């Protein structure tokens, strides 16, 4: 009998030919999963070595402790024997091993159950992404339409929601958001003032930092920063809340009770954000100006009075109300995106996380798109 030894990190595997037609797989030592798994490719190699064996058997006399590591190896060998139609004698293996193998093979693999790995080219992926974006936009606009109709029903008294729900959301996306809005927009004001000051100092025009910060904040940055903060904070929260409600069938419970989830859950959220974002925008404008003033007074030695007078001259009411209008639109976009993604949430806890992420991405992307459209339209209108 010719024997070939293959040392393995877990146990020991060796091969022998009892005669020219039988391959003996000898298992010895302890086979533990934690020491690594030997692959069945060693058996495959032996089967391909001339003279090719016509049957396979085992020698487990030296086998010590074993766990599912041995079982995994043997299942691989079984698969090879099955594919090559090679008869195998499993009887020398311990009874427990044979019992577990029978259990694992008791139910045949269901046809089509295994997910096939999908390989697609870059162009194909790009196409898929483009279609996905178009579909997402279509879903968003359809949902926006449904929300508009629900508001129309609300206006004629055919839709209702609980006032207490509206108040809770108003508190959450209004008063509770002041801290983060204060911090972020003050720092945005500081950054704008710094960037402007570096350039304007060269011309001795540091007073125009007030114009730069004031105009930037009131026209766009106040509304934009408030919107981005709310997309990350409140839009994600809306998606997570509604997503969780979907997972726990609370939304189904509303539907089967004849209560429209759109009216009951979406209307208070959209209303609250529509009302609160403009107020946050006003606050953001003020904090941005305060940040600019802080830089001007402390570093450029401009007096606070001069800074505020310059700011007052630079900002017009049109700019101010334009910024508020933009903020209100951004509020609707963020609330609708958050609620839509919440309703589209799957039925697992990880799907809730995905819904929150998608709500933030959708909210911010559409806010930026809206900002671009506003810039064009306001320019055409000369505002």
């Amino acid at each position, binding site marked *: 009998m010719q024997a070939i030894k293959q040392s393995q990190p877990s146990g020991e595997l060796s091969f022998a030919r009892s005669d020219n037609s039988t391959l003996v797989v000898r298992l010895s030592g302890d086979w533990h999963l934690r020491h690594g798994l030997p692959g069945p490719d060693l058996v495959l190699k032996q089967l391909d070595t001339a003279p090719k064996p016509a049957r396979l058997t085992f020698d487990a006399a030296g086998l010590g402790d074993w766990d599912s590591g041995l079982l995994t190896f043997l299942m691989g060998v079984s698969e090879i024997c099955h594919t090559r139609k090679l008869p195998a004698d499993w009887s020398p293996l311990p009874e427990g091993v044979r019992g577990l193998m029978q259990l694992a093979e008791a139910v045949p693999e269901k046809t089509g159950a295994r997910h096939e790995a999908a390989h697609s080219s870059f162009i194909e992926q790009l196409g898929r992404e483009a279609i996905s974006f178009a579909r997402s936009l279509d879903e968003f606009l359809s949902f926006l339409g449904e929300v508009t109709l629900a508001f129309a029903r609300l206006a004629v008294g055919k839709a*209702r929601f609980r006032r207490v*729900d509206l108040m*809770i959301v108003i508190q959450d996306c209004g008063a509770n958001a002041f801290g983060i809005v204060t911090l972020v927009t003050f720092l945005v004001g500081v950054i704008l003032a710094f960037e402007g000051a570096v350039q304007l100092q060269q011309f001795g025009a540091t007073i125009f930092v007030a114009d730069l910060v004031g105009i930037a904040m009131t026209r766009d940055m106040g509304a934009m920063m408030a919107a981005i903060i709310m997309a990350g904070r409140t839009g994600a929260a809306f998606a997570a809340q509604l997503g969780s*409600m979907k997972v*726990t*069938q*609370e939304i*189904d*419970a*509303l*539907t*089967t*009770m*004849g*209560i*429209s989830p759109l009216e009951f859950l979406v209307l208070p959220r959209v209303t609250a954000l529509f009302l609160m974002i403009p107020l946050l925008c006003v606050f953001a404008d003020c904090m941005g100006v305060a940040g600019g003033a802080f830089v001007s007074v402390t570093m450029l030695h401009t007096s606070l009075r001069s800074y505020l007078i310059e700011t007052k001259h630079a900002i017009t009411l049109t700019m101010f109300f334009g910024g508020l209008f933009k903020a209100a639109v951004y509020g609707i976009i963020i609330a609708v995106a958050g609620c839509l993604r919440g309703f589209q949430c799957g039925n697992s806890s990880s799907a809730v996380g995905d819904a929150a992420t998608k709500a933030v991405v959708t909210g911010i992307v559409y806010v930026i798109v809206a900002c671009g459209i506003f810039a064009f339209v306001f320019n055409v209108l000369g505002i």
Partner: protein
Amino acid sequence: MATTPSPIKSSDGKGLSVPKFPKDGPPPITVKNLTMAYGTFVLMKDVNFTVNHGDIFIIMGGSGSGKSTLLRHMLGLIEPAKGEVWYGDFNFTRGEPLEREEMLRHFGVLYQGGALWSSMTLAENVGLPLGEFTDLSEPEILEVASLKLALVGLKGFEGYYPSQISGGMQKRAGLARAIALDPEILFFDEPSAGLDPISSRLLDDLILELRDNLGATIVVVTHELASIFAIGNNSVFLDAESRTVIAQGDPKDLLAHSTDHRVQTFLTRGGEDAEKSARNHG
């Protein structure tokens, strides 16, 4: 509980003609040639059955056979690929959205986990449908909600939030909400799931009480044999392999007379002696 008409409002604000499903009228539920599918994958085809007045109708079958999906089709949460669901003489599948919404007010549904609205107290959960669909004042709503909670053994828990009570209590609170409007048809999705044997038995008793005292027709999705034999008097058996209904009738009759080995295997826990099983389940 009295079987007096409930003061439910229709969408035009007028009272509904009650009862919606008179005993001398057509069966309260008829499912005709229903095919359930997810995209191109057909889950169940040609499902036909009738639920009669006062039935406790069991939808049973193995895991993944489509029991809960069938329930969702019956409730209009999923549109069928083919076929129709009728409630009395109303074609629910083809009905107008407003008419369907109105029909839903005659149903009560208990979901697997209770599905209580987590931001509301138990009294608010039970009171919400009362506030939406009746002309009751706030104190009256609270009074009725307290009564419903007392009926399911939750007297004194009106001010608790769902997160403050156990899973079994959440299920009972869900039941209190389901019967808030004295519905004529009650749907239960896996009522015993996650409950200990005693709570499960108590819930079965409660279902029987509701059928007897509320006069409701009840549809229960379950694969708990003890519940099936204890409460069911009519059933369908869904088979995942053939994707069809393979047996209908009283579960006890199916156990005694069905010659289908799949039904026998299921009803005898995979081959347990049939006589023993019948003895155990009365």
